[in-house]
């Protein structure tokens, strides 16, 4: 109509800059173990694995929290249950006693990971179906309550180690690879993280993703164009739980240990901190947040055991001044680009 406002008719093709940055990031992540080896710092490789695992968990939470506006304070439930799937299957495998007398144990990563995803997804379906009837503070509280119920359940299950948790003597096997090797395990984590981030990148841009973002912004509007929000929120919550379960299964393999700690509400809090630190509702934010938190924890604990005393103010500064977490900070370093 008016020719003084020039608007793009269609979204620009994937910006070269974004593509380049993504490739650079991928190259850096692939080169990391070799670089650490060369620098004589091989101990940093497992740390990087931890970052990747938490990045998967935080990205999953971010789908519900950031993109869907569902502030879940109970994602430790899915994370922990994913871990316990690995632990219980391993115990059944070594003890040669099928789980519940029905399901044979296994130490194969290609079975344990999908199993963890499935179980966490089913759990998310149940918890989500009930919790999503509420919203706001009630939703936060009810998801927290479900996670704590699960925490106390596993504390009381002496078969699976109760309070002490259970040790997994060997990491799950994948083909003929030596999963015990730090670099090998790192690449497994990297592959899983790459797939998860790729999936989320597609999902948030899909029809489903736009509906989810619409529901976050205004549920009444979405109902008025004929969309019943509940089903979409539940689907997003289940996908989010599945991702967290996957991360938990990797974490159990990484630590070769599962305990109720993985289910504790402080774990939910940690995941939330990563999302907020990195940038709520951004794709790469959770990776940045996970990296920042794990690094901070590692560096600060070498100085003092009261490291959270420092973490608090850092988190405050990030929330108050970055507008969109570390991701927002990065985006502002590149002029002419928005945070998303």
């Amino acid at each position: 109509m008016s020719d003084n406002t020039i608007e793009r008719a269609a979204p620009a093709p994937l910006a070269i800059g974004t593509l380049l940055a993504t490739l650079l990031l991928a190259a850096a992540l692939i080169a990391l173990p070799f670089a650490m080896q060369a620098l004589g710092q091989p101990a940093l490789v497992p740390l990087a694995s931890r970052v990747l695992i938490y990045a998967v968990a935080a990205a999953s939470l971010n789908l519900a929290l950031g993109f869907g506006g569902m502030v879940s304070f109970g994602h430790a439930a899915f994370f922990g249950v994913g871990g316990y799937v690995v632990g219980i299957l391993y115990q059944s495998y070594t003890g040669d006693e099928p789980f519940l007398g029905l399901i044979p144990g296994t130490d194969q990563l290609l079975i344990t990971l999908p199993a963890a995803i499935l179980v966490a997804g089913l759990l998310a379906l149940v918890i989500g179906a009930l919790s999503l009837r509420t919203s706001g503070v009630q939703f936060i509280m009810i998801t927290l309550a479900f996670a704590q119920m699960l925490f106390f359940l596993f504390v009381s299950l002496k078969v699976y180690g109760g309070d002490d948790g259970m040790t997994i003597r060997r990491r799950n096997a994948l083909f003929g690879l030596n999963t015990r090797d730090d670099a090998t395990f790192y690449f497994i984590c990297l592959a899983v993280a790459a797939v998860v981030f790729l999936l989320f990148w597609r999902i948030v841009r899909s029809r489903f993703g736009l509906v989810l973002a619409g529901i976050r912004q205004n549920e009444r509007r979405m109902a008025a164009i004929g969309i019943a929000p509940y089903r979409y929120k539940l689907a997003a919550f289940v996908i989010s739980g599945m991702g967290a379960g996957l991360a938990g299964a990797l974490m159990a393999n990484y630590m070769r240990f599962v305990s109720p700690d993985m289910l504790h509400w402080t774990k939910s809090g940690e995941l939330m901190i990563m999302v907020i630190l990195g940038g709520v509702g951004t794709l790469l934010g959770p990776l940045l947040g996970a990296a920042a938190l794990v690094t901070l924890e590692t560096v600060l604990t070498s100085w003092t055991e009261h490291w959270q005393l420092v973490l608090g103010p850092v988190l405050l500064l990030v929330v108050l001044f970055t507008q969109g977490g570390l991701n927002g900070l990065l985006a502002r370093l590149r002029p002419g680009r928005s945070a998303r």
Partner: protein
Amino acid sequence: MTAPLLSVRGLRKRFGGLVATDGVDLDVVEGEIHALIGPNGAGKTTLITQLFGELTHDEGAIRLSGEEIGALKTPQRVARGLARTFQINQLLPDFSMLDNVALAVQAHAGHSFRFFADARRDEGLRSRARQHLAAAGLSHRAETKVADLSHGEQKQLEFAIALACEPRLLLLDEPMAGLGHAESEQMVAMLSALKGRVTMLLVEHDMDAVFKLADRISVLVYGRVIATGTAEEIRDNPEVRTAYLGEGDA
């Protein structure tokens, strides 16, 4: 005579001691613009909200083409051909105008459990949405974020979204409220261009617009319809004059 498109019988809604809708009977005939007027607090928006299913009524029947829809939820009523605009804009502020309309087109095109293809590159959805924006005279601002739009533009966007739902019956809740004179004229022109193609129930305080557009007018006072008729009949109705027009509101 065929059954009216919308038929409301004995609709009642109480909020505690207050009877907001007090046995409303209303017929909207296919193809007409039916205006609903009445003083502030008469229950016009409350009525619209019940027709749209965002608020449940206590008693009475709501039929669309003879089919009872009173028990259906809002999205189901939208699927049967109802759409509304809001007096207080209900938009997606982080999205562009085009996104807002494209989502309505998408919702109309079946379920959205599609997880992989980029919806913003779906030319089917985008071109339909652009047509609706063009019809509302908003093409030049298609990529502008809703939060950056003026009130008038948001109002027009409300209208474009409602049309993208391809409704049989459009419930318009004060589409002119807060618009400047020129914008108001533009809205009137848009509504009269649609006349005959989309049936409309129009709640509006701007009497010039109502008399210009409406085929029939119903007057709502204290939750009751006290009169229904053509513009002349309503203007000459003594009851309406005392209850409403006489108050100097017109």
